[in-house]
């Protein structure tokens, strides 16, 4: 509901605070060695340095934005490819039962192959590098967008279609003016799922063969023994994942004000 943004209460801060405190105690007392789990205070410094580059603590000093932009670019390219293919295909499939019968079973069968199972063949097709990452992201993002577009298009009430026809909307107009806007809440759910999963597949795509991006930083840091940078990269991905989700929600709220506050 509007005006009822979830407030973070004091109680919900206690649990993570206790966890960080235990983490801190375990590191300063030497129970967990530095090379496995650096202390939270050290992480804050390394993080600061990763973003600003002012402390020169690691070889990754000041590279946060460069890597983030590369990763963000891959996620967005993959997401946009998934959207341009998944959305129209899903809407058409949802409306035309003959096309549904022809392609939907196959798409659902292909969907059951886990994303990581595509990595080897993607490397054969696209080589190691950016193309593979973008392929994996668009493939992963395609399924939730497609499935939710099908569900949305299938759920248009028969009489709403009749109302549109009676008012003169046919064919493409019927699609753009009625089927698409009616399906929007469902499509939006698909887009959010796709964007979330895009970040997961970004890491998979960047783990091998690329030397830029947050996933590559993680893998590189592992080989150089920089546990702090691995954890910081994880935090950065969480940050970008949340931020892109919020931007998507904001865009939806601006362009589709009737989507319903509960949906956004």
């Amino acid at each position, binding site marked *: 509901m509007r005006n009822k943004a979830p407030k973070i209460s004091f109680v919900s801060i206690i649990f993570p605070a206790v966890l960080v405190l235990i983490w801190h105690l375990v590191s300063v007392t030497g129970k967990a060695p530095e090379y496995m789990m650096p202390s939270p205070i050290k992480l804050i410094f390394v993080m600061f340095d990763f973003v600003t580059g002012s402390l020169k603590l690691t070889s990754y000093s000041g590279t946060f934005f460069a890597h983030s932009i590369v990763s963000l670019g891959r996620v967005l390219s993959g997401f946009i490819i998934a959207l341009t293919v998944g959305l129209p295909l899903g809407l058409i499939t949802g409306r035309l039962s003959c096309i549904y019968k022809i392609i939907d079973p196959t798409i659902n069968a292909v969907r059951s192959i886990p994303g990581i199972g595509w990595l080897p063949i993607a490397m054969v097709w696209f080589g190691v590098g950016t193309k593979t990452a973008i392929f994996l992201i668009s493939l992963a993002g395609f399924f939730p967008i497609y499935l939710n577009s099908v569900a949305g298009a299938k759920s248009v*009430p028969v*009489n*709403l279609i*009749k*109302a549109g*026809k*009676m*008012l*003169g*909307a046919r064919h493409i*107009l019927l699609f753009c*003016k*009625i089927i698409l*806007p*009616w399906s*929007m809440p469902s499509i939006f759910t698909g887009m959010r799922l796709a964007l979330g999963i895009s970040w997961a597949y970004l890491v998979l795509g960047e783990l091998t063969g690329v030397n830029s991006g947050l996933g590559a930083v993680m893998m590189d840091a592992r080989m150089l023994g920089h546990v702090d940078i691995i954890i910081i990269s994880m935090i950065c991905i969480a940050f970008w994942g949340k931020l892109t989700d919020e931007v998507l929600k904001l865009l939806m709220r601006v362009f*589709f004000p*009737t*989507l319903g506050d509960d949906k956004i």
Partner: protein
Amino acid sequence: MKVNDTILKINNIEKNYAAGEDSEKVHVLNSLSFSVKKGEIVSIVGPSGCGKSTLLNIVAGFEKTDGGEVYYNNTRVFGPNSEIAVVFQAPELFLWLTVSENIAFGLNIKKEDKQVIKDKVSDFIKLVNLEGFEKFYPNQLSIGMQQRVALARALILSPNMLIMDEPFSALDYQTRIMMQKLLLKLWDKFKMTILFVTHDVEEAIFLADKTIVLSKRPAKIIDEIIVPFERPRQISIIADNEFLKLKSRVLGYLM
């Protein structure tokens, strides 16, 4: 009656339905024939599930017949026609559009001039008493108000014929009477032909020039009753002896 007075002619139409691909066919409409004169209000009553909605869907061009023909202005009906507007049982508004945008929908599809659309929409908002609600979304309105938007949305295209499928059945008694009066007011202004399906026998007689009574499935016409009351009609006629006689005659068929 002159031949060219007839706007709608239903000629021996047949309709069967199959619930599934293998299941037995259900005979819904049994050689139905009747005609409607230009500007006439015709109501159709019949037991639940007798095929009244199917009949309307066929006239509106949403469904095909399995036999017989429908003629609108001496031309066979094969699909939806911009001269035939439909109001459904539920308002079926476009929930993502405001009241004004819903009413303007058909004119926008026709790519009418922006200023013309604006003026027409504001006229129709006044006609259905929705001033002040132009920017509201359908979900923010009562069902009665939504149904008025649906009426305006259909009538703004100046249809010659209005088809209504139990449009007021979801409304409470007072709102229903208000809507009936509004409908008659609009009819008085535009003189469109109205084909009206209802469960409510009183409504069927009060509004109509002619009431068609259908039998249970497969539907055929058991009676065509000419309603003799002068227009404009006052709601008080429902207590008139003549009215009560007609009402019990129709109820007699349905019970």
